[in-house]
């Protein structure tokens, strides 16, 4: 049997260990579900326990944000909510590998990453409340809008990365002058033409973009095996860039692998692909009923791999945190919850008339006439409603 090439071809890059890794079917794990730290030949988490405690804090807050979203939807305050439950490590670990100058393109589920990027909670909720279309300041937070069209953002991310290249922001000797793009997509999304085209463009132009495939095992009711019969991280091999599978419920491993991929991209070594092997513990969205298509045994088995519990166990065992620390965190989460709920209830929409004003940057006579016609139509009802108010 002939010896296979490096799957992505070409000479060994500057990070031979990590590249070699991608040829293995093994999943990178640095913290077991039991809370034990383990070594990996290619990847290491280099932070201290204080940093790990920071990650725990952010995961707990992300989970709280998510639970509030779900309950606000139940209460009719939101129209819809796509829960992140179970994906806290994958989100926080990857989100923490992103620097200020980097850019992030999310799906519609990366609430934890949004939080890390400083997106105001109200801006995020507004989308699901129907009071806006998710109009946080993309440039300020370097965090793209949520994307509903499955996979479309992967092309935007790749183009943004091509712009970074043109701006001279990769491969500089001063690491701080470099930047890269992190883009999320799901296991289901891996089947979309756009997503595969983004791999083509990223590879062709060696764009500084990291594809973070959130393999939460399901695309609504379809298991990831409907999309691919082989592990998804191997998809990258066919396009000529490294693909790594990481335990998506292990925040240390996710952070380490994403750090590696982002730094590689910033240095000008091109795209990389990370498959975070995780699980969507909740429903697809609050409109979904997962009991229709998956067994509770499966969910139960994954519950034992909870991304938060293992970190808690590790830190408690290591003596890095104690019950007091945890109850302070609870209190912080409660405060966040309170903030979320009150923010949400105050969110209101601008009027439809405003939509005409933002149709174009340079409004047309047509859009202005349309707005005026709309307003004067509405105006005709005003005396009437004043009357009926009497």
């Amino acid at each position, binding site marked *: 049997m002939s010896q296979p090439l490096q799957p992505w071809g070409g000479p060994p890059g500057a990070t031979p260990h990590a590249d070699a890794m991608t040829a293995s079917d093994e999943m990178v794990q640095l913290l077991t579900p039991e809370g034990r730290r383990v070594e990996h030949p290619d990847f290491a988490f280099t932070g201290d326990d204080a940093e790990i405690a920071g990650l725990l804090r952010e995961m707990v807050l992300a989970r709280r944000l998510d639970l509030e979203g779900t309950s606000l939807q139940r209460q009719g305050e939101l129209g*819809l909510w796509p829960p992140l439950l179970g994906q806290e490590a994958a989100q926080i670990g990857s989100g923490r590998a992103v620097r200020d100058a980097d850019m992030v393109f999310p799906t519609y589920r990366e609430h934890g990453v949004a939080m890390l990027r400083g997106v105001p909670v109200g801006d995020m909720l507004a989308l699901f409340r129907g009071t*806006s279309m998710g109009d946080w300041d993309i440039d300020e937070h370097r965090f793209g809008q949520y994307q509903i069209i*499955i996979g479309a953002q992967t092309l935007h991310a790749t183009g943004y990365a091509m712009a970074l290249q043109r701006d001279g922001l990769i491969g500089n000797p001063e690491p701080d002058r470099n930047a890269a793009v992190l883009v999320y997509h799901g296991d*289901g999304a891996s089947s979309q033409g756009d997503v595969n085209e983004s791999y083509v463009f990223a590879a062709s132009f060696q764009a500084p973009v990291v594809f973070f495939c959130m393999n939460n095992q399901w695309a*609504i009711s379809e298991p990831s095996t409907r*999309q691919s019969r082989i592990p998804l991280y191997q998809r990258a091999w066919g396009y000529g860039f490294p693909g790594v599978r990481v335990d998506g419920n292990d925040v240390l491993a996710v952070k380490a692998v994403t750090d590696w991929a982002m730094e590689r991209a910033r240095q000008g070594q091109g795209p990389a692909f990370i498959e975070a092997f995780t699980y969507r513990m909740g429903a697809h969205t609050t409109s979904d009923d997962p009991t229709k*298509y998956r067994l509770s045994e499966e969910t139960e088995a994954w519950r034992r791999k909870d991304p938060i519990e293992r970190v808690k166990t590790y830190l408690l065992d290591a003596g890095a945190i104690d019950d007091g620390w945890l109850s302070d965190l609870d209190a912080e989460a409660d405060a966040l919850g309170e903030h979320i709920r009150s923010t949400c209830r105050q969110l209101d929409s601008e009027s439809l008339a405003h939509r005409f004003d933002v*149709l174009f940057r340079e409004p047309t006579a047509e859009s202005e006439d349309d707005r005026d016609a709309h307003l004067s*139509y509405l105006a005709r009802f005003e005396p009437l409603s004043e009357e009926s108010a009497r």
Partner: protein
Amino acid sequence: MSTMTMAKALNAGLRRALDANPKVLLFGEDIGKLGGVFRITEGLQKDFGEERVIDAPLAESGIIGTSFGMAMRGYRPVIEIQFDGFVYPGFDQIVSQVAKFHNRTNGRSSVPMVVRIPYGGGIGAIEHHSESPEAYFVHTAGLKVVTCSNPNDAYWMIQQAVASDDPVIFLEPKRRYHDKGEVVHESKPIALHQARIVRGGTDATLIAYGPMVKTCVEAATIAEEEGRSLEVIDLRSLSPIDMVTLTHSVRRTRRAVVVHEDVRTLGVGAEVAARLGEELFYLMESPVLRVTGHDLPYPNSRVESDFLPDVDRILDAVDRSLAY
């Protein structure tokens, strides 16, 4: 005869289509165990098997393109696009392949397939879930485009669409999925491409389809209280348009208002207005007026009620029409 929701009627119609012809297949995202996000295909995979009710990978162009291939070999794929806004990744396969095939092959081959699309707004959804894509398809030669407004039509039209030897875009007004109505199982339905006079009237004709038919009937009911007699026509078929029924009505009423959720510019109303103008120039007492969604991307749900035509806007247009 029985009373059921449009969702159930579609389910029953699809079941009959699957029963009637072993070549009929259902193909789409989440249509198997889940029964589709609107449960239109509920129970069908259980009864007809995974080879006939097929969960597809998440790729609309792939779904339409592979269905095309299956149809070339005699199958009759009935595709479910999960929401209106997700049909565009498959647009090329629809307009460049499906629409042209019979013509390209000089009539030798055809791809009888149905693309079901839940469409329209009014359900408080997030963006891309309330689109009205019909005009893109009506504008495309080689496609037939139909839409149901009530359970009985849903039940029959889906079967007629599946039986059609030409490709059919089948639009389902999602905000009417849960409205109940009578389904007459026994009697033969009217032809698929025929419009229907939902309510007779003499002062003006309201022309609508899909979700807006109900709204127009409500408007006509209110108008009646004010002494105005409005005829309401449900187009049912958007391509071809049944101009015979339309002109017959407008010849009598001499005034027409077209109503749809889709934007005004080059919405179906534009074509209806242009044709009525051409055909009934001397007869019309007033121009065809259009009550439509605004020329905007579909807005966030909190303001969608200002975007969508409603009874007031329809009656306002009727007033204007009568004032000419």
